[in-house]
């Protein structure tokens, strides 16, 4: 994963706190991870090591969760800090994005 990805993920998490009206802060730690602090929670978002079938690791307190994409990270973070968040129960199947 490139520095650009980490930077844009950092920006997305910053904007997300504003968008969700949640007081908190997003900072980079010494190891390059992203730390989100809000609602008495501290979350650490890091890129997964090589050789594992996921790209992100999100540590919420003592729990560790994994995500395949930045959108997965976003869902995990929001679930941890936004009590009003209600994830969709129904999965929306993506339509084919290439012409038939």
């Amino acid at each position, binding site marked *: 994963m490139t520095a650009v990805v980490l930077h844009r*993920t950092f920006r997305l998490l910053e904007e997300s706190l504003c968008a969700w009206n949640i007081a908190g802060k997003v900072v980079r730690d010494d190891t390059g991870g992203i730390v989100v602090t809000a609602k008495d929670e501290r979350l650490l978002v890091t890129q997964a090591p090589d050789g594992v079938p996921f790209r992100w690791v999100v540590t919420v307190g003592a729990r560790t969760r994994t995500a395949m*994409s930045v959108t997965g990270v*976003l869902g995990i973070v929001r679930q941890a800090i936004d009590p009003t968040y209600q994830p969709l129960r129904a999965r929306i199947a993506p*339509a084919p994005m290439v*012409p038939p």
Partner: protein
Amino acid sequence: MIPVSVLTGFLGSGKTTVLARLLRRPEFSRTAVIINEFGEVGLDHDLVEASDESLVQLQTGCLCCAVRGDLVRTLDDLLRRREEGTVPPFERVLIETSGLADPAPILQSLMLDAALAGRLALHGVVTTVDAVNGVATLRRQPESVKQVAVADRLLLTKTDLADDTRDVRMRVAALNPSAPFIAVTLGDVDPELLFAASDHDKAGRYQEADHHHHHAQSHANDIAFFAIVREEPIAAIALTLFLEALAEHCGADLLRLKGIIRVTENADRPAVIHGVQQVFHPPAWLERWPSADRTSRLVFITRGISQPWIEALLAAIEAEVHSVSGPEA
């Protein structure tokens, strides 16, 4: 596919007057009209006269609530009867909603229902706004705000009764700056102005929205209008992840999304996408770009969702997809 247009607008804003005039126009023949009224006893269908080549059908109840399933059944039944030859071979469908209807669930039904898929295509939303009472209605009635926000065309009615329409125009433009405004007197309007929108036209409107209203924001009723433009093509997987995330995190606050997209995997054929709340229509692929402008343009109408968040979301997804599939991976 048969185009379906939705005519909406708050109670008393002149929908039925417009419809009655439209149905007298020869250019508007061969139209199946579904009139929805709120209440047990319908009246509007008695107020319109249609030619023999058109068809008017009445539904009672509110389309966006209990009768939503009935709308699908009514349309399905109309299509079946058209195929059987028991109704005139209509070439377009117009749905007049009740004045209290939230148009979003109706648009969802039109885009989502499997029984209608491949036979009907949502063509556009026309919203009437009363030049006399429009400002007060928009202040008091949240349904009217939504009706304006999702419109592709706005009809300013009763202009002959209003001394000054500047306030209502400003208010409506703040809610939906991309929709053209057409002034109407006594319901008289050229059907071509309302229902002739083609994909080419839509693409032009996205361009217009971009040029004139790229950063337009309205804080009235928390409704925001903005456009996102991308010079570079967007990978199919990035677009899919983006739409999924919008559905997941925005839900009912994403009032409408329209876009013309240059997809990396097929950059010569633009994809046209439509979304209403959590529902996204399968992309329609145009044969070619309608102009030399090949930028991707996404127009959002939202409630309480900020443009910076959506920009950041797309940027993060694009960076990740690029890092996985691009030369740096």
